[in-house]
Structure formats: structure tokens, C-alpha cells
């Protein structure tokens, strides 16, 4: 399964590296991407299913990247407000990247990769605003 899991990692890194982004821009982009993946996956899976998946993914990744303790699950969605206040932006970007990859991996595995292509395509549509805002 490891090679199948690599697919998500490669997709995310390719997408993320496509634009020469600053760390802060990457954080904004990753947050948008996670939100978009949540929304897209929620259309196929029920909200309640998505919630337990988010819970699992968050639980698992934060054990390796403790900065993710600052992420909360509220209103059936991941909230990054506190995380963005963390001064170590490189660590935050790394943690969000790991969270996104794990989310895609778990959704892929749970749906026998039925959603994988759709979610990867969704990822490619996520871009910063023209202003490159945060």
C-alpha cells in the first residue's frame, strides 16, 4: 500500500511546488486546500463520516507533529485560527502539508481510491488569490 500512499504525497508536493511560494503563502494555500478537500469529500461521504475521518487524521498526524494540537475540530471542520499564530511558520507549513497528505491518503483508502482522482483534480484548482493574500 505504501506505493499507493506515495501517490498522494507526490500529488501534494507537485501542486505545492508549482508556484514559487513563500512559507506564509504555502500556509494559506494549504488551509484553502484542506477546506476544499473537506467540502468535496463531504459531497460524497456524509458529514458525520467526514467528521470521524477528520478526527482520525488529526489525531494521527498530531502525534508526530505536536504543533497540530493547535488545530481544532469545530462545526464539522478543521479550524486553524490558533495554528496560524504559531511563530514557527516553517513547522506550521510542514504540519499542514502532512495533514493534507494524510487526509487524502485516508479518504483514498476508505473509498478504495474512488475519490482519489477527483480530489487530486480538486487540489489543482486551489490557487492563491491574485493578491497572494494571507
Amino acid at each position, binding site marked *: *500500500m505504501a506505493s499507493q500512499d506515495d501517490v498522494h504525497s507526490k500529488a501534494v508536493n507537485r501542486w505545492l511546488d508549482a508556484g514559487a511560494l513563500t512559507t506564509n503563502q504555502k500556509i494559506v494555500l494549504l488551509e484553502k486546500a484542506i477546506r476544499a478537500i473537506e467540502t468535496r469529500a463531504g459531497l460524497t461521504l456524509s458529514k*458525520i*463520516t467526514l467528521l*470521524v*475521518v477528520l*478526527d*482520525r487524521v488529526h*489525531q*494521527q498526524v498530531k502525534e508526530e507533529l505536536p504543533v497540530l494540537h493547535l488545530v481544532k475540530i469545530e462545526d464539522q471542520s478543521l479550524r486553524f485560527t490558533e495554528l496560524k499564530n504559531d511563530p514557527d511558520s516553517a513547522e506550521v507549513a510542514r504540519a499542514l502539508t502532512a495533514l493534507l497528505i494524510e487526509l487524502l491518503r*485516508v479518504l483514498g*483508502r*476508505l473509498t478504495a481510491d474512488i475519490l482519489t482522482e477527483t480530489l487530486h483534480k480538486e487540489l489543482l484548482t486551489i490557487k492563491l488569490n491574485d493578491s497572494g493574500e494571507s
Partner: protein
Amino acid sequence: MKISVPDNRIESGVRNLDKILFGGIPAGELIVFSGSPGAGKTTLAHQIIFKNATPEKPALIFQTLSEPTAKTLRYLRKFSFFDAAKLEDGSITFIDLGEILRAKGLEQTISLLMGHVKRVKPAFVVIDSFKVFDELAQDREELRKFTYEVALNLMAWECTGFFLGEFRSIDIETNPLFSIIDGIISLRVRLDSGEHQRFVQVIKMRGTDHSRDEHAFAINSEGLEVYAPRLTIRRTPENGSVTSEASPSRVKLGFPHLDKLLGEGIVAGSTLLVSGVAGTGKTLLLLEFIYKGAVECGEKGIFFSFEETEERVIANARGMGWDLEEQIRRGHIEIVFIPQPDIMVEKHLLMMKDRIESLGAKRIAIDSSSVFLHKITDPQVVREKIFQLATLVQMSQAVGFFAADVPYGSHKLSRFGVEETVVDGIILLTAVNNEKTFKRDRFLEIYKLRNTSHANGRHKIEIGHSGIKIFSGTGKPSVKRAPTKSLKPARKK
């Protein structure tokens, strides 16, 4: 033959269960093991867990109110699959939910249960028993919510879950659990052919086709063992049924009188019924078939006896001047005695398969098929079992002689009246009273032998000190018999 288990399947560790599931338990599914107390649910779950749980793929076993953990462990120790090291290295963790269930009910239970799941991240979860939740739920809605949450969370954590319970058929229609789970394996015990027999049946299993039959199983020191002869004893082109039709390999038996009657020889893989009423020489013919195979033809033979002990069979052979013990010592012959009251057809079919394969037997004698199947009353089942016995012979490309007891005074060719339709040939042994000599004259007739030009008619036989003598018609021996060497007394081991 070991079945190969695909990546997305879990090898159960239960003999033949993976064959019923056409390749193992689908990973990540939630499966109910239902059955009455003592049906084998807990043993089955633990057998699977001890086979599969590792520190990298750990298992959580939640005990509810059914049995204290200490008692379960004590009971599990007697099985060969039990490995105490798996409890030490974190592969398997037992958690007793009984106390919190009693004190705090279902709502607290789910958060406790999921707390353990999040901490351990198990690949396998067992809940024994899930049925307890039915009794603890305040109402159906609470049960539905609880069940749904458990199932959803285990799904999200990619756990393969086994939920055990004394569920009845009605539960499948009414219990909310059954609308969520992926599979149902039913275990039951019932009276079958006069004895209590355990049966396993896969009622439902998402993600795989599976056998829908009931299969007998037993619980022994290795855990569950499923017999499933319908799946394990099968004729395939690989073991000769197709290729041998064009130019069949033929076997000579090594006793000239009989070989002459059998024409160009018996096709390898064939089974012959040796039919006759009691006292016509069936057992002796089977014994000679096995003994001559080893001594004259260098073919290993196995003799399954349901009436005579091994010692009695050896003594009978010694009376004919045949040193069976020597052949047994050399590994050319095996005698397997299964006392008649102990016969369990499905179990012993599997045992026969194992023994035939491990010996590499080319001659198989069953004395008798009538006794072996005596508990079965349904002719259709008798026919199926005879077919499976014949398939064992065919799979080994051996020759089988099955004794069949014909009732006195009947014109039947076999005990049940169906055996003769399955086998490839029939050697009919008869006896009539001779009014002149006041003795019984015995006869042998090749009644049927598929694909072979064999001798017709009855041939007189005599049972003497060196076995069966066959005469041409009612006259002199059809082939001059070589003098039998006198035997030294049987060696002691």
C-alpha cells in the same frame, strides 16, 4: 493445498475457512459472528486475532459483560494458536468494558472504546459480546446511534471488526447492527445424523463471493477446523480427469487371476466397489489388494478400517501368510482404524485426504463405505459422500477399492443403492449353498468397469491360506498361481 490470500484479505488461520470465503476475510470490514453460547464464536475470533495481530497491526479485544478477561485467557491457553508473547509485545490488548457499561451506560462506553482505538490504532477490533448493548440500550434509537457510531469510527480507523453475539435469525431483520455490518458468519450446533455437529455458514460478506453452504467444523486443540469437503475435495483437470480420458494410464493389481479378468487394467484414478453380503471375502480382497500393491508392484497403500482394529487386520493378514507389519514398518502400508461409533463423515473425509496425501498412497481401501456412511439417511448425501471418497482416489491418481455390504436376500449391488452409480467399477462377490457338498460356493464377477474390456460372468473363488484363488468359470484356476513363500513370524517393533 494452501489457498493464496490476496493483499486486501486476511488469512483467517482457520483451516478451510478462507476457502469458504473464496480467499480470506476482506480487510477493513465489520463482521458479526453469531451463534448460541458454546457455538465457537469466541474461539473463532481469537484464532483469527492470534494469527494476524502484530505490534505493527495490533488488536483490541473488548470484553463486555459476557466473560471476565482472566477466564478467557485461561480458556485460550489450551489452544495451540495461543501465544502469550502477543499479550506482552502489544500485539493483543484485552480491555474489560464490563464495569463502565454497568456504571455509565452506552454513551460513556463509546467514548471509552474510541479512546482506546485512538491510542492503540488497532488493525483489528473484537467486541465480545455486542449483543450486550441490546440489553443496555434504553431504547432502539439509542442502540441504533451507538451501533452506528461504533461502526463509523472503526471504519474511519480502517479496523477490521469482529462483533460477537448470540443473535437469532429475527435479529438480522430487526437489530440496527445488521444494517451496518459487512458480513455475517453464523455458527451453530445441531443434531445431525444422530450426533451433535457444529456448522459454520457465511450468510453475507460484502466484497467477496463466498460459499453459501453450511460446513461442518470441529474445535480441537488447534482451534476451529472446517471440513468443507465440497470445496476441498474437487475433481480438476490438473489431477487427471481430462487428460487421462484420451490415453488413460492403467494399473495392474499384481494378482494375476484378477488382472486377467480386468482386461487391460484399471484406469488410474478409478474406484471400484467391492460388493457382497457378509462373508463373501470383501475385506480379504481389499487386504490382498493393498498387500500385493506394496509387495508385487511397489505401490504404497492405505487401508481404512471401521470395524477391525489395526491389530486384527494385521492378524488376519498373517493368517494368509502376508507380513503386513513389515510393510507398515517400511512405510509402504498404513492401516487407519476409526472405530465405528467415532465416525464423523466430514471430519474423517478430511483426515483421509491428509493421510492419503502424506503417504502418497496409490492404493486406497475403505472397509467399508457402508459402515463409514451408516449414520447418513439421505441417499443424496450418501451419493455425494461416495463421490467425495472417489474424488480422493481420483485426486491421487490411485486405485480405490471400497467394500460395500449388500443386505442379505436383496438383489442390490450396494448398501444404499446409490454407490454403484458413482464408482467406475464393481466387483461383485456372491455365495450360494452347494447342496451336494453342503458348503458355500463363492463367486467373483467383474460386474462393471468403465472404459475397459473386462471378463464377463461369475468366476468361482476359494479363500485359502494365501488369499483368494480365482477359477475360470466354475473350473480350475484361470492362471497358475505361484507358490506362496512361507513367512517368518511377524517382527516385533
